[in-house]
């Protein structure tokens, strides 16, 4: 009896530690980022930060082109990964026969495990030339190429998580809907999907999160020219993302220099952007749940 108690105590403590350590790690990462990035705010004049030229070896630290580059690549990726991912998830969960589903789901998950550097290689050798000749633009190293590949990387995440969410909608919901005379499509669109909404939203956010944080592929195919995007045309021009900048420059920067602190400051901006994306998703999910509870009570 006592032994069982002790075992339970230890297990609870272990689980608690694991749970809290996640929070501790995130806090520590943020404190570290702040410590290394905050000096940049005093070392670089605001006017230098909010300008359009990024050329750190001559002390031009305009981060606007980098933020713009990250946003346009991520936006482009979401633009086609979200509808495509959702459609595949619906097909796998609701429409495909059982045998097809058992092949498709693992296949999509394998796709999600592809190393990004490999995708970058395929991008350079196949997609970049195809985009240049296909769209008749000066170079194929563009934000669009990056968006295409990032979208391709985000799709497996979106499909896998969204499919799980759709799958966990109780069978009775579909049966009830079909019994009321709704067609299969109406059932999917009006009943199953809304019921799985929080899981599907999480899928979008995870997919977009993967896209905004991805480094290797974008560094290889977006051309890395720090040009501030103005309008949708910028999608078909080269762009430089925040992640690629940090990856390309961190290796050679002198520890403790202004450039070093600015790179960490970019890290903070990146961190805040993903935090904002997650908070927005969480608030939508939370509101949804409250509404559902009200209806059920």
């Amino acid at each position, binding site marked *: 009896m006592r032994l069982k108690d002790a075992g339970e105590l230890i297990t609870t403590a272990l689980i608690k530690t694991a749970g809290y350590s996640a929070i501790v790690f995130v806090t520590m990462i943020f404190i570290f980022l702040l410590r290394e990035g905050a000096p940049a705010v005093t070392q670089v004049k605001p006017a230098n930060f909010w300008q*359009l*030229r990024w*050329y*750190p*070896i*001559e002390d*031009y630290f305009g981060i606007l*082109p980098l933020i713009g580059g990250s946003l346009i690549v991520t936006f482009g990726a979401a633009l086609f990964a979200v509808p495509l991912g959702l459609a595949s998830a619906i097909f796998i969960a609701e429409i495909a026969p059982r045998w097809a589903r058992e092949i498709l789901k693992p296949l999509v998950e394998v796709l999600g495990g592809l190393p990004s550097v490999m995708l970058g290689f395929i991008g*350079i*050798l196949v997609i*970049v*030339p195809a985009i*240049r000749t296909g769209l008749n633009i*000066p*170079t*194929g*190293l563009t934000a669009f190429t990056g968006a295409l590949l990032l979208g391709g990387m985000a799709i497996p995440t979106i499909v896998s998580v969204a499919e799980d969410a759709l799958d966990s909608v109780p069978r009775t919901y579909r049966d009830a809907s079909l019994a009321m005379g709704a067609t299969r499509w109406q059932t999917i669109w009006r009943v199953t999907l809304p019921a799985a909404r929080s899981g599907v939203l999480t899928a979008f956010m995870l997919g977009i999160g993967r896209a905004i944080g991805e480094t290797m592929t974008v*560094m*290889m195919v977006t*051309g*890395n*020219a*720090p*040009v501030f995007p103005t309008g949708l045309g910028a999608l078909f*021009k*080269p762009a*430089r993302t925040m992640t690629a900048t940090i990856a*390309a*420059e961190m*290796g*050679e*920067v*002198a*520890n*403790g*220099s202004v450039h070093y602190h600015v790179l960490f400051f970019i890290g903070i901006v990146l961190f805040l952007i993903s935090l904002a994306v997650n908070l927005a998703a969480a608030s939508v999910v939370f509101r949804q749940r409250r509404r559902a509870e009200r209806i059920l009570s």
Partner: protein
Amino acid sequence: MDRRSAASLLLLAAFSLTSCQPSQSSPSSIAPARTIENKGSDTIVNLALAWAERYQTIKPEVRISVTGGGSGTGIASLINGTVDIANASRQIKEEERADAQANGISPVEFVIARDAIAIIINPENPVERLTLQQISAIYSGSINNWNEVGGEDRPIVRLSRETNSGTHVYFLENVLRLGEKENKTLFSTDTLLLPSSEGITAEIRQNPNAIGYDGLGYVTDEVKVVAVAANADSPYIMPSADTVNNGQYPIARDLYMYTAGEPGDVLKTYLDWIMSPDAQLIVRELGFVPLLR
């Protein structure tokens, strides 16, 4: 900086220790006769490392530790007497030489290899030759179409190495700014910054709009090399081991090693070996231009 160089020193120490193991039958019995400390230019660091590794197989009793940090760092260490050889991708400055004299050290210069930058374009591009001024105007953004330099009516796509590459800085100072100290010209913001030589070659191979530059040794047959003239009145010169060594090709520089005073026995044997055909073969493998005798 300190933490970083300390870490790389540790790494190197680990490397040299492990790489020594196979060549020595009983590691503890043969104590190294001498350790050569070699520090400086990041442009040369890989070359110096390759030399050190090869030399270790020939003379296991000599240990060579190589660190980067930049030409200035290397020369400063030589002045402080903490290294035996300083690597530099530029000549020692007057004030550095004066500092060294004040410390009782007279640096001796050795040219150990040469570095040339080739301007490369797609083989389909009919342009054969450019002046330094034209290349500068292309990269600063004032020439935007190939027909302005005698080519077809095509937009110019500029490719460059990342800002952390030594080649980027050399190109900025000596081509874009034409070697003028007061010249503050910058790269056009739409210059594509690619992280590797392979990235530049891959894009130029398939894009007739592109222009790029890279170390002469990295140039492959899949791209076309442009002849370069120092100005409109000078002859256009194709880069090659010959034109670089006789100083005709305008985008080339010497790479140096400096010792504190005339080198002693161990150092002299090492430096002599560096000038040997065997060692100069490694120069070619790493993308630089070997010395011709």
